[in-house]
């Protein structure tokens, strides 16, 4: 160990990058938040919102002269699960939500249901059709059916690109911002500036190490989503990588900007949250931005994370090409470029 030959000195840029990467991988918390957390979130939310096979709707038929015949007619429909009950009990079960529809013993029958409940409505339509048909009505035609349960339209498919975008934002901003503010607070930045290290190298190494870290980070989430959750990547993989890199760089710029002045971690955390929390809410990570009122859309659409999430979803889910993404990519590039320029102008080195 002690008498191994002295290694040839590496270049300053390589050493600065290596130092940053070593710091990152030796921080167990960072590894958790960057790699494990998004995968865990995708797995849990994917499980919670998974598509279930359609379940038969519980329906009560009130016992009476027509009871058995009606029960038989309803039983023939796969989407209904009818039971024969007494009048009072049927009402009670409806009130408790155990059944969604009660078919009375009257002739013709009365349907008791809650029209505000979609399941109640469906049961009414299905039960009516079955009873009418049993009473002799003929269908005018038999429609074909196309059932959509394929990958790409499920909640988890919507979710994964959003989580990827959220992660690119979080690691870009924290990764750059936190380490610079810690270095400033501990006089390390000043010490580096006092040594013959180029300032462009000091900041450049931060960006490069961030981009190197992007590979396992985005790779782990996408691989998990693809292999375990069956989330598709319909567009070009190269374009997906390009969008991710541009997104990562844009948030590096924002991270650099938020870290340009603060002298303490507390100060920097405040600014970081001020920048990131609105995007967690408004940028369509967990639900579509369409849900916000039209008056808010200009604000929502101007956020860099909205642009990144839209671009990621377009490539992964719609197979969009480069041309279709130009507005989003231009917005991201603008955010990144403006942040970089302003950050370098106001950067506090000591």
């Amino acid at each position, binding site marked *: 160990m*002690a008498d191994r030959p002295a290694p040839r000195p590496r270049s300053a840029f390589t*050493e600065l990058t290596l130092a940053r990467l070593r*710091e990152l991988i030796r921080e167990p918390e960072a590894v958790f938040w960057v790699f494990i957390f998004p995968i865990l979130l995708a797995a849990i939310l994917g499980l919670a919102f998974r598509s279930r096979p359609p379940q038969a709707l519980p329906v009560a038929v009130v016992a009476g002269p027509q009871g058995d015949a009606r029960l038989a007619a309803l039983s023939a429909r796969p989407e209904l699960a009818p039971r024969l009950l007494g009048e009072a009990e049927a009402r009670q079960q409806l009130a408790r939500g155990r059944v969604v529809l009660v078919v009375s013993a009257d002739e013709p029958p009365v349907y008791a249901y809650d029209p505000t409940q979609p399941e109640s409505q469906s049961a009414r339509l299905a039960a009516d059709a079955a009873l009418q048909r049993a009473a002799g009505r003929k269908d005018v035609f038999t429609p074909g059916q196309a059932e959509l349960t394929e990958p790409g339209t499920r909640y988890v498919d919507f979710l994964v690109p959003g989580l990827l975008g959220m992660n690119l934002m979080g690691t870009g901003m924290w990764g750059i911002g936190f380490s610079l503010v810690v*270095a400033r607070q*501990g*006089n*390390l930045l000043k010490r580096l500036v006092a*040594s*013959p290290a180029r300032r462009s190298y000091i900041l450049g190494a931060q960006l490069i190490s961030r981009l190197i870290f992007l590979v396992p980070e985005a790779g782990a989430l996408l691989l998990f989503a693809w292999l375990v959750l069956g989330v598709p990547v319909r567009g070009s993989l190269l374009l997906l990588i390009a969008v991710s890199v541009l997104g990562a760089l844009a948030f590096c710029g924002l991270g650099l900007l938020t870290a340009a002045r603060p002298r303490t971690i507390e100060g920097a955390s405040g600014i970081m949250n001020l920048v990131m929390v609105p995007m967690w809410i408004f940028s369509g990570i967990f639900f579509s931005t369409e849900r916000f009122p039209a008056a808010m859309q200009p604000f929502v659409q101007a956020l860099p994370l909205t642009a990144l999430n839209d671009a990621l979803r377009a490539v992964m889910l719609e197979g969009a090409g480069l041309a279709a993404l130009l507005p989003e990519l231009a917005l991201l590039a603008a955010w990144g470029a403006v942040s970089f320029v302003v950050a370098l102008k106001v950067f506090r080195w000591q």
Partner: protein
Amino acid sequence: MEDPVVPSKDTSESALRCRGLVKRYGEVVAVAGLDLEVRRGECFGMLGPNGAGKTTTVEIFEGLREPDAGEVDVLGDRWRGDGLALRRRLGIQLQETKFPDKLRVREVLSLFRSFYPRGLDIADSLALVGLEEKADAQVRTLSGGQKQRLSLASALIGDPELLFLDEPTTGLDPQSRRQTWEIVEGLKARGRTVLLTTHYMEEAARLCDRVAIIDHGKAIALGTPRELVASLGAEHVVEFTINEEASAALSAEVLAALPSVEGVAREGGRWRLTVREVHRAVPALLAALAERGATPTELATHHASLEDVFMALTGRRLRDG
């Protein structure tokens, strides 16, 4: 037009020179017209209390701050542009630097080594500061003294012509302080030029060839530690305490007239005499006190030090300003 100075042919005697240096922070004048010269191969000390403007001055020398007025020559060069060429010839230890906790000692040094075109091996720099056994330890596991030695190693790694040490032992335990002193003495033996700031008079006396005493942003005295102490005119200090009443009855003139006494200072009931010969001054002093019915509650003598020089010049102590 300045003389055309080519670093390799720079044979000027001074490693660093400043004239009329001024730095203000708003209303506060941190450096108030400072002139200094550090010669090649010497260890030069700036001794002064906290807030005297030492760190501001050193950071101007290091090219980290711009002075409001005055000129600075460092190794025959001026600060301009990115100053990279000049920085490659300097070693700088800031008052406190927090290196990344998760990096190993060896990795920190190899990072700093990469900034210099030539310099020490990692192993040599570790040996220089006695951190060989900690080479593979992460920074967070080091003690305060070890961190300070790592910082020193990072300043030495480029084999600098001029080394700046800003309060190198502040906050260290006595053992770590002695270790740091031994390292600096080793550098002196190898003919390095060192500029250090300190508010410990023992440190300045032990390490420095010449000392400038700094107060309120000015050099109020300059010389070798021996010259500065000799300027008191006496080698010893006698301190005694008597009660306030007896003090009031005692006059400085009476004490100054005692044999061998060169100087008299008073703080309430506490008196300080600078004397040439203790064995002549003390019996005479005790006799003079007995005559006035005063008994000293405390009596002590010590060799005059830089602290006494500072007190003679400012009336204040170094450590508690």
